[in-house]
């Protein structure tokens, strides 16, 4: 699977990848770049990665999902490069025979991504300045999917 992309992520592609007749529940998570007017406005975020390790980490996370939820089917994409406000930086689709597994598997992937994936983001502010986002150093993180 190609986990990393520099293009907009079509959610329908991920839904098609996980669709299967035995699945009765599908969960789709999108993390989107959000504006932060209180911080002067954010027009987009530039994502960069240790790409080979990000792929290896996604492989490991999905292997963990297969062990914990053997019937779940997963598809995931993370975007790199400039992502404008409102567009998705990450998409995760999880399908399973029942909804509980789909929700749990999907939640597991995004939480592990937040902890482990070697990806960094630089905010592009409305005034033309840029700022590396440090989720540990700045409690009021500006970025996709809310607080750290």
């Amino acid at each position: 699977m190609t986990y990393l992309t520099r293009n907009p992520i079509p959610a329908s592609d991920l839904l098609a990848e996980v669709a299967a007749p035995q699945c009765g529940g599908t969960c789709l998570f999108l993390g989107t770049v959000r504006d932060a007017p209180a911080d002067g406005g954010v027009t987009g975020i530039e994502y960069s990665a240790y790409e080979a390790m990000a792929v290896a980490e996604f492989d490991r996370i999905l292997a963990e999902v297969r062990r914990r939820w053997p019937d779940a089917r997963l598809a995931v994409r993370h975007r790199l490069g400039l992502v404008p406000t409102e567009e998705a930086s990450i998409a995760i689709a999880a399908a399973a025979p029942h909804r509980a597994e789909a929700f749990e598997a999907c939640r597991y992937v995004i939480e592990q991504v937040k902890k482990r994936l070697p990806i960094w983001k630089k905010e592009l502010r409305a005034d033309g300045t840029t700022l590396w986002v440090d989720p540990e150093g700045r409690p009021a993180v500006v970025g996709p999917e809310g607080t750290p």
Partner: protein
Amino acid sequence: MQVRFFARYAELAGCETTALAVAVPATVADVVAEVRRAIPGAAALPERLLAAVNMRHVKLDAPVGDGDEVAFLPPVAGG
């Protein structure tokens, strides 16, 4: 061994990759010490660093060998 810096750390170090000679057996902490000695900009790196060896997260006491790739990672911000 090959040492890599990413994102803000690459800006501070002034390079994305460099080759360093560190006497083995060594740990990641030994590599950090050599990085600080050999790369002027590395003095600005924080005291506590996240590291990966051969694309796996490790602690600073993890062993490193001659052919290993050691990466220093700013706090991750994916998702």
